[in-house]
């Protein structure tokens, strides 16, 4: 009976609670008590109950008693168990969580926590902007929304004008190059195709990025840009755009670069000459008391030991980078961390950086100015390493179906190409650095043909071991420099002779030519370099061919009818079959040359010194000194053994 009553009482209370929140205590006491007992105050204490006389068993009284125990207010939190239980029952009935009995404790704890976190428990003095607010502001700012005035929306006529102007400009360029630039560089269109291959970004990111790329395209320096890919970093990622600079900009930078390179060569040539003249002159042994001798005698004397080794300064010369607009620096690269940032241009790449980047393995952090701690020391910061990595990936993995691109201004017919190559052999100029452009006569391959890697060709030149695309012949450059320096009529004849010799000397390390099929790729790792897949197995009519590089995991190219695009999404690390082994440290240099005239003797101990001092005072103890000498010799012999 008693239990039932309590239940009824609790249910009543929960119903009441849902109607009148807050003043529950009052209601409960009124409701469950008969009219005569409503005289108890709101916060009743059970000791008060005890005072009123009742004859047991009295259910009413016992229920009231139990309730007042439950309603006892905690001295710590100010809550009471009755309210809490009522709240739980209400929540369970309202929300109906499944299997509530299994996590009853957790549920109860959560409820209490929520109550504690109720906004009315705190008086919010200050509004703190959330983290998301900062990002939201950034995104809105990057969209360049029309300014809102009091009257309503006012569209920025300026931006519209700009866009129109930009479109006109682009039309002019399109005519100049004889093809439509925007079709194949259309980022959104490409992203649609990538999403069918399973390589897309999030829709929102794609849209923001397309706006950002448009901004980049409108920059006066930029002629044309293409989304290159994404390289992950530990803290942030890099989104990278490949950019063709305008001719004016290239010219401007070119002149500066040529000056710098020439300066470097002249410095090297001069320092080389000085270096040959310096030769170490041997003097008398240091330590001997040679000051007391007259100079005549001194000159006649022979040194008894090898002199102090002279430092042999060898001036080092870094192979100069390729001029901007040629070779590895033909394209310029711009990066951002997030699509709302401003594009930052990466510096040009030097052969030394390529060389060291091949030898080290580093993760990117996401901050362009991070210093690189590595052995061998990387010349530059993270932005240089990023640029070198981009150059390596681009050169290794940018491919297209054969015939998709052609050398500019030349027909792609086989016969002529052979001739063309032949010409180049005669000229002795490596033709890898030709400008390529889209081939208008390209007929799409059958997708099944493209499943054979024989039909895919590299479209970016191979980087030779020197770290350049064109070989830089240092000796030739030096001779050229000298020729310019001391050109006299007498020597001219000699120079001509030399020139003839040069042509024989002038050999280039052979690399694969530009449109080389990827089947001929070689690698030291024991994996097939490329994997070709269809984007879809069950849709046999409209499917793309997706090819990925196993040597640079993350590099993908697809081909669908007339469209081909490449992308890189990855960590910027080359595949290594087992593990990376850093190159060995060089052997420790010798401080002093080993020679028969030098003996290593251990220092006398304290006792021996004392003995020696004693022998000075008392000559009769000299034999002890002899003993010490013989002992030492004995030790030496032992050491020799």
């Amino acid at each position, binding site marked *: 009976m008693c239990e039932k009553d309590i239940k009824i009482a609790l249910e009543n209370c929960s119903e009441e609670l849902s109607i009148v929140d807050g003043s529950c205590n009052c209601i409960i006491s009124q409701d469950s008590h008969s009219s005569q007992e409503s005289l108890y105050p709101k916060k009743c204490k059970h000791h008060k109950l005890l005072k009123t006389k009742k004859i047991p068993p009295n259910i009413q009284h016992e229920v009231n008693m139990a309730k007042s125990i439950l309603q006892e207010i905690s001295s710590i939190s100010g809550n009471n168990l009755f309210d809490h239980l009522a709240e739980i029952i209400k929540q369970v009935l309202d929300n109906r969580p499944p299997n509530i009995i299994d996590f009853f404790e957790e549920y109860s704890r959560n409820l209490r926590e929520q109550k504690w976190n109720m906004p009315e428990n705190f008086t919010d003095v200050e509004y703190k902007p959330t983290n998301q607010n900062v990002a939201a502001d950034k995104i809105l700012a990057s969209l360049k929304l029309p300014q809102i005035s009091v009257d309503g929306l006012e569209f920025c006529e300026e931006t519209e004008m700009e866009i129109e102007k930009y479109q006109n400009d682009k039309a002019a360029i399109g005519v100049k190059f004889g093809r439509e630039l925007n079709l194949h560089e259309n980022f959104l269109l490409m992203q649609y195709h990538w999403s069918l291959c399973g390589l897309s970004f999030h829709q929102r990111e794609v849209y923001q990025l397309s706006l950002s790329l448009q901004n980049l395209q409108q920059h006066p320096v930029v002629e044309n840009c293409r989304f290159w890919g994404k390289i992950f970093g530990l803290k942030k990622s890099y989104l990278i755009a490949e950019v063709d600079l305008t001719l004016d900009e290239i010219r401007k930078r070119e002149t500066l670069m040529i000056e710098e390179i020439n300066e470097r060569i002249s410095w090297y040539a001069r320092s080389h000459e000085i270096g040959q003249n310096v030769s170490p002159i041997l003097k008398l042994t240091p330590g001997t008391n040679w000051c007391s001798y007259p100079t005549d005698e001194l000159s006649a004397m022979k040194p008894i030991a090898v002199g102090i080794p002279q430092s042999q300064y060898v001036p080092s010369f870094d192979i100069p980078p390729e001029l901007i607009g040629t070779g590895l620096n033909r394209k310029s690269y711009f990066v951002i961390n997030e699509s709302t940032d401003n594009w930052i241009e990466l510096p040009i790449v030097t052969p030394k950086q390529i060389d060291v980047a091949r030898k080290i393995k580093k993760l990117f952090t996401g901050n362009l100015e991070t210093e690189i701690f590595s052995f061998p020391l990387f010349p530059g910061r993270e932005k240089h390493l990023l640029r070198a990595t981009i150059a390596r990936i681009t050169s290794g993995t940018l491919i297209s179906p054969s015939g998709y691109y052609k050398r500019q201004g030349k027909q792609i017919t086989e016969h002529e190409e052979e001739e063309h190559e032949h010409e180049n052999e005669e000229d002795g100029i490596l033709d890898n650095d030709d400008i390529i452009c889209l081939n208008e006569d390209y007929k799409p391959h059958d997708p099944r043909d493209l499943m054979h890697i024989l039909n895919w060709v590299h479209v970016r030149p191979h980087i030779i071991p020197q770290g350049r695309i064109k070989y830089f012949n240092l000796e030739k450059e030096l001779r050229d420099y000298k020729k310019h320096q001391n050109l006299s009529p007498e020597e001219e004849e000699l120079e001509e002779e030399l020139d003839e010799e040069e042509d024989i000397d002038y050999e280039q390390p052979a690399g694969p030519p530009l449109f080389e099929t990827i089947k001929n790729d070689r690698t030291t790792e*024991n994996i097939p370099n490329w994997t070709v897949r269809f984007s*879809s197995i069950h849709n046999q009519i409209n499917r793309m061919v997706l090819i990925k590089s196993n040597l640079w995991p993350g590099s993908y190219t697809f081909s669908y009818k007339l469209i081909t695009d490449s992308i890189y999404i990855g960590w910027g690390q080359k595949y290594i079959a087992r593990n990376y082994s850093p190159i060995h440290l060089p052997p420790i240099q010798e401080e002093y040359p080993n020679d028969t005239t030098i003996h290593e003797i251990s220092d006398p101990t304290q006792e021996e010194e004392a003995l020696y001092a004693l022998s000075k005072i008392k000559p009769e103890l000299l034999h002890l000194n002899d003993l010490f000498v013989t002992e030492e010799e004995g030790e030496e012999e032992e050491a020799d053994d």
Partner: protein
Amino acid sequence: MNIEYLWEGLDLISNYCTQKLNPEQYILIQNSLLVLQNENRFKNIFFWGRIDGIEKDYFIAFGTYADCLGERKFYYSTDCYNWLMMPYENKELFETCFLCKEPLLGDPTHLTVVKLDPKFSFDENQIILATEPEVVKMKEEDRLSCLVNRITEETAIIPRGAIYKLIDKTAIHNPLFRGLEELEIDDQAYYCHYRDPKNDYISNLAKKPDYNYCIDFLDTIDETFPKKRAFALNMGFNDRVSIIHSCIWPGMTFFHKLNSRKHGFAYFGNGKYNIDFLFML
């Protein structure tokens, strides 16, 4: 990644991993996994990820019964709809799997021959005996199982509070989990390994000032060697989603939405352990 919100999850990590699933694979996987769940009466079924092979790729999924940390059944498929049960992990193949440097082929029956390192016996810094390097033949299926188990063990992540330990010691997905809060979400100490805890129970509890016996029994990821470097935590989508990459198994990506119970991990990669990680920092 739970099959319930697979597409949403893949979308959220799509900015941070290489090749995901294409729509065709997604449709096949989601529906065939639901069938698989029905057949095997799994409480929850998860898409685990993809390991690339040369000829074919392996798609991997696992299902759990009541205890989500206990028995997990792994399945693999090369065509996204025929799911084959993966053999249980063979602990003896651990070293072999680690030393095998050939890429996966895509044929589960393929036998790989692995030459183990020779074993040396030492006496006072001197090698006194070297055994011939042992040659072990390993089936690709076993290798796959070994790889998958190891990757799960080392890099599978769950936010704090997402797993609840019942009184009878079974661990279940906490239905009351409301997601991490703004102050917690960018801290690695609030993410745990999705595995049976290896550390001491008390020391795991003691890491949190507001410890809870039911949820703080798991190992946190900031304790993994190298400490605080083994995982890289980024925030994305207006700082609303936390993304965690594993640096030791590149390709493992985890996401968790702020104030939401949605979280999950997926692996897309070639199954190579990044042994050079310490060189790369």
